[in-house]
């Protein structure tokens, strides 16, 4: 490249960079604005929420939070949501990771077909499963119980975990397990002592996504629970769909914010695990 063309090239490159940055900012605004609106509205008095023009500066109030946190059904539902989301997340990560490992590594006749079938089960609309599930649960006397919801969530979480982890395990050098097999491990030993520790970033990120999926699930919770095991999304749906008093937007935004915050905190806490490359250095590099 000659000296004459260099500045022009640099300038073009700089402009391209600016365009990309601003496109990114615009996308973030687009996606985050509803969240921003929800959080902001949750601190307003109900009468201030829909004023035109919107009020940006107001006296923040915790009134809606206080009144809703005191309601027994909301705090109980919060506990239920935590229980069901972590329970189904953990169960599906254990079962799904082991299934994914088997599909990735062990030569089983028809493994590919099996994998596709399990994936296809995710294509069934949940509403088609909800009613049969309810009938089965009622027959077994299991309606409105945490375990029912946990098992129901596993039906879609396990295929999800299985496929994500299968891809992750396929990316690991198979010589690692072979070395472990020669060093005196069984298949299970190689999996738990070598593969699981180095797959922690993948396992954790998959766990987070599973927990979030379970956290925000509405349909099964609506059908399978009633009072005792009911979750926050059901409460939100109840507030939004209140045909008697009309939607209480203050409550909706406050409970919505309460639902989002734990997920964000959780994601931030495990973030450093996601970035850290644990598998580094295993091979020639």
């Amino acid at each position: 490249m000659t000296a004459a063309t260099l500045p022009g090239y640099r300038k073009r490159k700089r402009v391209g960079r600016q365009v990309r940055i601003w496109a990114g900012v615009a996308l973030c605004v687009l996606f985050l604005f509803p969240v921003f609106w929800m959080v902001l509205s949750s601190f307003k008095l109900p009468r201030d929420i829909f004023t035109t023009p919107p009020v940006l500066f107001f006296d923040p109030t915790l009134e809606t939070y206080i009144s809703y946190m005191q309601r027994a059904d909301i705090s109980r539902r919060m506990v239920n949501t935590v229980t069901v989301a972590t329970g189904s997340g953990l169960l599906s990560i254990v079962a799904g990771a082991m299934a994914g490992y088997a599909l990735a590594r062990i030569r089983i006749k028809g493994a590919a077909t099996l994998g596709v079938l399990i994936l296809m089960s995710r294509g069934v609309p949940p509403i088609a499963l909800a009613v049969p599930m309810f009938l089965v649960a009622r027959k077994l006397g299991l309606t409105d119980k945490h375990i029912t919801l946990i098992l129901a969530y596993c039906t879609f979480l396990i295929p999800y975990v299985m496929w994500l982890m299968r891809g992750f395990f396929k990316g690991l050098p198979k010589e690692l397990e072979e070395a472990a097999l020669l060093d005196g491990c069984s298949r299970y030993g190689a999996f738990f002592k070598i593969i699981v520790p180095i797959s922690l970033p993948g396992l954790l990120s998959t766990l987070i996504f599973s927990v979030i999926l379970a956290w925000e699930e509405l349909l099964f919770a609506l059908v399978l629970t009633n009072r005792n095991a009911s979750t926050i999304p059901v409460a939100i749906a109840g507030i939004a769909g209140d045909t008697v008093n009309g939607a209480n937007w203050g409550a909706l935004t406050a409970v919505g914010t309460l639902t989002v915050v734990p997920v964000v905190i959780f994601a931030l806490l495990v973030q450093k695990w996601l970035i850290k490359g644990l598998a580094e250095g295993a091979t020639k590099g």
Partner: protein
Amino acid sequence: MSKVEIRNLRKTYDNLEVIHGIDVDIADGEFVALVGPSGCGKSTLLRMIAGLEEITSGEILIGDDVVNDIAPKDRDIAMVFQNYALYPHMSVRRNMGFALKQRGLPASEIDKRVAEAAGILGLADYLERKPRQLSGGQRQRVAMGRAIVRNPNVFLFDEPLSNLDAKLRVQMRSELKELHQRLATTTVYVTHDQIEAMTLSDRVVVMNGGNVEQAGPPLELYDSPHSLFVAAFIGSPQMNFFEGTLSDRRSLVLADGVELGLGKHVAQPGAEVTIGVRPEHFNIGKGDGWPSQAIVIEPTGSETQITTRIAGHTARVLLRGRTSIEPGQTIHLETDPENIHVFSQATGRVL
């Protein structure tokens, strides 16, 4: 330590046979190199010895026991992989001690053995590091250390040096040889590099297309290759080949009518053959010998390689020391009739 016997071993993947009934005997303490081009089955054979691939038919014996149905962990074998396969989440110390811990050895014994191996391999200062904090050569040493702490029946190496740069490879090669002389553990070493195979091993097994082409001490393979394949595979620069028909005038007639004198009586005049002469077996003659034209002269100091053309056929000549031959000059290539290898074109075998 143990001998390894391979009897009529076959391997089939989905109806495709990749190893066609191989027999190899490896004596106690012997260093055997399996060498051949990619896809010749050498790695598959090694992995079958390790127990990482199932045996379709035939038998593998380690010591006096058939190990066909014995799990890898119970074969008392240590393997060094091409990509090292170090456990990334463990320190060098734990990597090396892992197999011993699996066997339930007391911590003091593990520490002692790891320290000993680390001393041999010059890793004593790196024991607390993770694999990612090591250079390629150090990782390679850890992989070897992981194998030697176990004091196994058999060492298996799967192209262990191929990821190192050229200089380090040569250095590790002699270290490996020294290590074997010291430990005298039965070793099977897979490589596609014939120089590695020649320099390291007591015996070389040349494989081709799932068969053993020839097995023997390195120099025996070099001096009397049984087939065209072995002749071409062993030796660098490669043996020169000329295809033609044997005449009753003790000569070879090439396709274009050029006649090369062989200086010896060869049976079967009229046979279609390929003759081979190693580059260093040519001498520059005075007026007799095969007339040829020097094209490229490549001196390396200790020797000089000359690329010549004999009536359109390229031949390489390796001379010890230096030469005053200039490109374009006509030279006469002589060779001792003993050094001419004659192979059948039909079978590729030596005549």
